């Protein structure tokens, strides 16, 4: 009983979300006019409460629920990031300012948002193969439903179908890999697996570990949309309602990186050594380097020719996953810090870009870049903010995006000359990306538009949120020391047993 009580205390963020989820489902059954407002408030309150509970867990480290999950600073960082992403999405995107969601039932949306957040948190702290797989599938299944949210819309439906078939196949492959891992090590708990692998293994088993790693990576690659498991990504991001796209491009991806980090560092690292040291079983860096380089390149090159902004941002988000992966490749504390910083930056810049796209779609009903000329005159605030978001995505100082790139590139270069080619690939990619981001800016600002279109009428709340997100891309540079302290403090993985 005592253990359950202790687990519950360290599980308060998740409990708050669960409570809010159940309440939203109940309220949705009511037939009242205040229902929608109540559900929105409940959702926001649940998320905010969850965030508040997270603060109480600072510095706590340990196993909960008999080793099914762990609480540790890195997990906490991801929890804050994930809850923050959901909170921002719930605040910024409303059923009023999105043409796609307008008129759809609201209860399920909030319930699903809370459910995805909850599963993301479970994923960030999973410490057992069963829990890991369950959490991953929970995130996936709830995301499938969110993508199909626009009833009667062909694109939404088609996107969801592709998503679910691709997702089910890749998680199926991952499950097979996990089952083989259980067969090799005889346990499903990550610390147990590390203990076993740390004791050394035979050559035959090492070969099997390659196979396991490949199969398991199918699942993680699917979640983080890394090449070659990225095929679903553009279709899904284009077909889903834009708020959902914005959410999916940030939260599950971050959760994917959380679980990737935990699986590789907590499950496969050498016990006793530095927490960021992997077993010498497989040449991990080379595998990850290749994936990272391919992901960046494929994403950026494909984005070059896109005119649909949702699709363009989808490809660019694939590329960004490649940059984040650079942090993982470095396999060092600095690399992990780079990953953390990059994900933080990515959250504010990507959500901002998607918000602008949504607002433009709300007024003009288009996602096509060819309809964007002349926007500067019609909506100066949106254009300026978009410029900030895009410059941030490019990695231009002093935006946060620059800090993210700086940290990951530094971490890679610091690893030695054999890694420098990767940094070069990354730099080249940044140049390609700069081209298509700049093209959007040019279209919006310089190209002459059709003067007949009316000026933008934006709600005050929407203007405020755009401005807040733009400032969030600019300001952090001024109190960077605080952020760096936080990132450094988050670099502890619970690795005991």
């Amino acid at each position, binding site marked *: 009983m005592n253990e359950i009580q202790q687990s519950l205390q360290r599980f308060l963020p998740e409990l708050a979300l669960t409570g809010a989820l159940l309440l939203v*489902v109940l309220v949705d059954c009511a037939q009242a006019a205040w229902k929608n407002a109540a559900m929105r408030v409940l959702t926001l309150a649940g998320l905010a409460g969850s965030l508040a509970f997270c603060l109480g867990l600072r510095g706590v480290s340990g196993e909960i*629920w008999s080793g099914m999950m762990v609480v540790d600073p890195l997990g906490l960082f991801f929890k804050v990031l994930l809850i923050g992403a959901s909170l921002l999405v719930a605040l910024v995107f409303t059923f009023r300012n999105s043409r796609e969601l307008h008129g759809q039932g609201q209860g*399920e949306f909030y*319930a699903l948002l809370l459910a995805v957040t909850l599963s993301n948190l479970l994923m960030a702290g999973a410490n057992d193969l*069963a829990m890991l797989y369950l959490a991953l599938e929970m995130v996936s299944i*709830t995301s499938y*439903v969110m993508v199909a949210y626009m*009833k009667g819309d062909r694109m939404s439906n088609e996107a969801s179908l592709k998503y679910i078939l691709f997702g089910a196949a890749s998680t199926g492959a991952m499950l097979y890999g996990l089952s083989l891992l259980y067969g090799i090590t005889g346990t499903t708990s990550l610390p147990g697996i590390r203990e076993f692998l740390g004791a050394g293994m035979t050559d035959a088993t090492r070969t099997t570990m390659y196979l396991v790693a490949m199969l398991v990576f199918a699942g993680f690659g699917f979640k983080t949309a890394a090449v070659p498991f990225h095929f679903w990504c553009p279709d899904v991001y284009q077909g889903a309602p834009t708020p959902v796209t914005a959410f999916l491009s940030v939260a599950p991806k971050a959760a994917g990186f959380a679980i990737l980090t935990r699986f590789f560092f907590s499950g496969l690292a050498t016990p006793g050594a530095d927490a960021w040291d992997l077993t010498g079983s497989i040449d991990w860096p080379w595998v990850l380097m290749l994936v990272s380089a391919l992901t960046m390149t494929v994403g950026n090159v494909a984005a070059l020719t896109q005119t649909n902004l949702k699709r363009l941002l989808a490809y660019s988000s694939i590329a960004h996953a490649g940059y984040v992966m650079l942090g993982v490749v470095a396999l060092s504390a600095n690399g992990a810090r780079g990953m953390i910083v990059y994900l933080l930056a990515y959250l504010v810049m990507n959500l901002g870009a998607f918000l602008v796209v949504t607002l433009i779609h709300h007024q003009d009903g288009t996602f096509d870049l060819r309809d964007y000329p002349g926007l500067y005159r019609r909506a100066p605030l949106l254009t300026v903010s978009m410029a900030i978001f895009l410059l941030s995505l490019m990695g231009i100082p002093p935006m946060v995006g620059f800090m993210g790139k700086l940290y990951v590139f530094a971490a890679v270069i610091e690893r030695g000359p054999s890694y420098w080619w990767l940094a070069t690939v990354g730099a080249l990619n940044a140049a390609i990306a700069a081209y298509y981001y700049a093209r959007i800016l040019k279209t919006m600002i310089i190209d002459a538009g059709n003067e007949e279109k009316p000026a933008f009428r934006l709600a005050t709340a929407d203007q405020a949120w755009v401005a807040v997100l733009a400032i969030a891309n600019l300001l952090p540079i001024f109190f960077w020391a605080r952020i760096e302290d936080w990132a450094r403090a988050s670099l502890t993985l619970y690795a005991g047993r």
Partner: protein
Amino acid sequence: MNAEAAVFYVLAAITVGSAAVVVLARSLIYSAFALLFTFVGVAGLYLLLGADFLAATQLLIYVGGILVLLLFGVMLTHKLYDLDLRSEVTQFLPGVIVSIGLFAVLALTAWRTDWAGGDGRAPAATTREIGQLFMGRYLLPFEAASILLLVALMGAAMIVRRKRSA
């Protein structure tokens, strides 16, 4: 050849044979009904492995739930009473080559790897222990799974329900 081996080979033949029908049959409905035998065969293998609880779960959920759902899916996505439920096949040859290669790799893995060894005894009668584990060590995944089922139920209902005329 002892009795256990005989039972195993029969079950394995049923499982793999019907799985092949699932994948190769031209008619969708044959695939679906062949899946029944795969599921039952796998349930039999579970029994042989001493996992009686899991075998019953397999029957209940796979046969009574998933298969019935799939059959509904097959029938609702075609003209009813249409006998010719064709399921077209694309890229057959490359697919076969890939799967044969995959099978070879997995078979080799199964043969060569040094799997974690125990004393070779089956876990004791499982139902009670599984129940206790669900309420003990696996409490969190157990509860999380219930949330998952709730959300999936809600989501599936939301997706198929026609848009409100409001």
